[in-house]
């Protein structure tokens, strides 16, 4: 299968005051279209930094990074924002929903950046919420939903604009086991049935088992790759 993500000799250095901290060292990585990849490693190993680079939230210090044939390491902030809007869906550990908006309005947010009218946005958000099993919670505010339900709203928001790539940063880190399994099952369905390419950072080996592959990072370097059955 063709590669969706191609990372070549990528390094990332952060400047903290006068100190320079090299978080990623010469990373070489390909992620195939339709893959479900788990990134694991101890705290400070660089997995979230790598995820941020793949999602276009940050730019590498060195090397090149292509997603879907687009060199995103060369893009300016404005172009990168546009690229993210149409190519990537984000799922965070703490859901990051806007508390003053209903579930439906939260899901509609990425669609505000499209040319869809209000009725079409509402319809698409409804479909996405139905897909994550929350059709009956459209008008609920985040505070009126459980953690698992909030994360499912976040997943609906991530997929509503039909991106090819989903990046998930500890999506089950704040959930109980049952809710975590529901969310991971949902991600697996999105990967297998809807062809979404998923890159997920996790500390949890059980969560990683839902992925097709697991990559281990340590001190900014890829150290091991495990394929799951």
């Amino acid at each position, binding site marked *: 299968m063709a590669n969706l993500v191609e990372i070549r000799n990528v390094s990332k250095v952060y400047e903290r005051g006068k100190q320079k901290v090299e978080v990623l060292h010469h990373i070489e990585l390909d992620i195939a279209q339709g893959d479900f990849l788990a990134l694991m490693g101890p705290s400070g190993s660089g997995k979230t930094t790598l995820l*941020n680079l793949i*999602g276009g*939230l*940050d730019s590498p210090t060195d090397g090149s990074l292509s997603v879907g044939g687009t060199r995103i390491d060369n893009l300016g*902030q*404005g172009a990168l*924002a*546009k690229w*993210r*809007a*149409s190519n990537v869906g*984000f799922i*965070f550990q703490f859901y*990051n929903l*806007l*508390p*003053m*908006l209903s579930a439906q*309005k939260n899901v509609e*947010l*990425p669609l*505000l*950046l499209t040319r869809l009218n*209000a009725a079409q946005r509402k319809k698409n958000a409804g479909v996405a919420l139905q897909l994550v099993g929350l059709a009956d919670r459209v008008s609920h505010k985040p505070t009126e939903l459980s953690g698992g339900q909030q994360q499912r709203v976040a997943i609906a*928001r991530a997929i509503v604009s039909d991106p090819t790539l989903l990046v998930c940063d500890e999506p089950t880190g704040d959930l109980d086991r049952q809710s975590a399994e529901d969310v991971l099952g949902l991600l697996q369905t999105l990967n297998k049935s809807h062809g979404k390419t998923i890159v997920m950072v996790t500390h949890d080996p059980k969560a990683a088992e839902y992925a097709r592959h697991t990559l281990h990072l340590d001190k900014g370097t890829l150290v091991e790759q495990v394929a799951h059955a």
Partner: protein
Amino acid sequence: MKYLHLIWAALFRRKTRTILTLVSIVAAFLLFGLLDAVRISFAEAGKSANGAERLQVGARLSFIQPLPQGLGAQIAQVPGVRDVAHANWFGGAYQDPHNQIFTFAVSPNYFDVYPEVEVDPEQRKAFDANLNGILVGEVIMKKYGWKIGDKLPLQSQIFPNKEGSKNWNFDIMGVMKSKDNKAFQSQMIVLHWKNFDETTPYNHGSVGWYIVRVNDVNDSDRVARAIDAISANSDHETKTMTEQAATANWIKQLADIGLIVTSIMGAVFFTLVLLTGNTMMQAVRERTSELAVLKTIGFSNGSVLAMVLAESVLLLVLGGVIGLGLVSLISMALPALSGGMITHTSVGAKSWSLGLALAIAIGVVIGALPAMRAMRLNIVDALAGR
């Protein structure tokens, strides 16, 4: 427009804080509207279609210096002069020195130069026939609940009567009206100049000022110069100006209303900028992670900047509209509440435009800093809580 619900929701994210801020904005714009009504009332005093063709002739040295009664006949001879009337300041207070009512002693032809003032012919006839009679403005009449035929005690600030007392007694003979009470006579009292002149030992054949109606408004400058030329190099040199300029001049001698209003409003809006600016900064700081999420999903730096700016402008415009709307309601009662001093009875288009322009400008000023902060937000740092 499609971001409006997002801006509105962000604005009312913390309802109590937003409502309290809104109340302070409403209060500031309420004060602005009321003070603007005062300023316009004073600025428009003397302005009317008829006022344009009226000139006031007063002493050049000071408006309290009297002019000789004989000057009136000379003024009437000036080409272009249609009518000449005269008046004296009486300065009446009713019951309490604080209840000041503008009261003038006027010549019999006073109403010839003020055609906009309406007096019922029967009442006018009764007034002319009674030397102790007075005509009362409709607004004052209603305010104090007086009736025609009532005996009215008035205290002059300056002039004693024959017995040496400043307490005068008059008979109310009629009411002075004008369309929408626009004429200042609707808020004053007039008495016979003859009665005034014969009763007070302080006045013997002198008048306070002359009111001249000209045939042609465009000829006013020439007529004014000709009138002033009559008394040139005498002990009663005159200064002739339009009624509007004379009224403005008189008000300026009382106080610079425009400067006072501008100073108060400057202080109020400066405080508002600090107060609301601080609230906006706090509101944006609390939403750092939410703004980072918006940027993560593809909102550009410009969009985030515009949304925060729009939020602060919306807050100010909302407060401004409510404040000015309240002034519109209150201003209906202003003439009565102010004892007729404030005649401006509605918030005009100019006040609305100025108020809204101020609201937008203050909104932009207070929103600029938090909006810039939101725009420059680094997504990775903000999501990591740094």
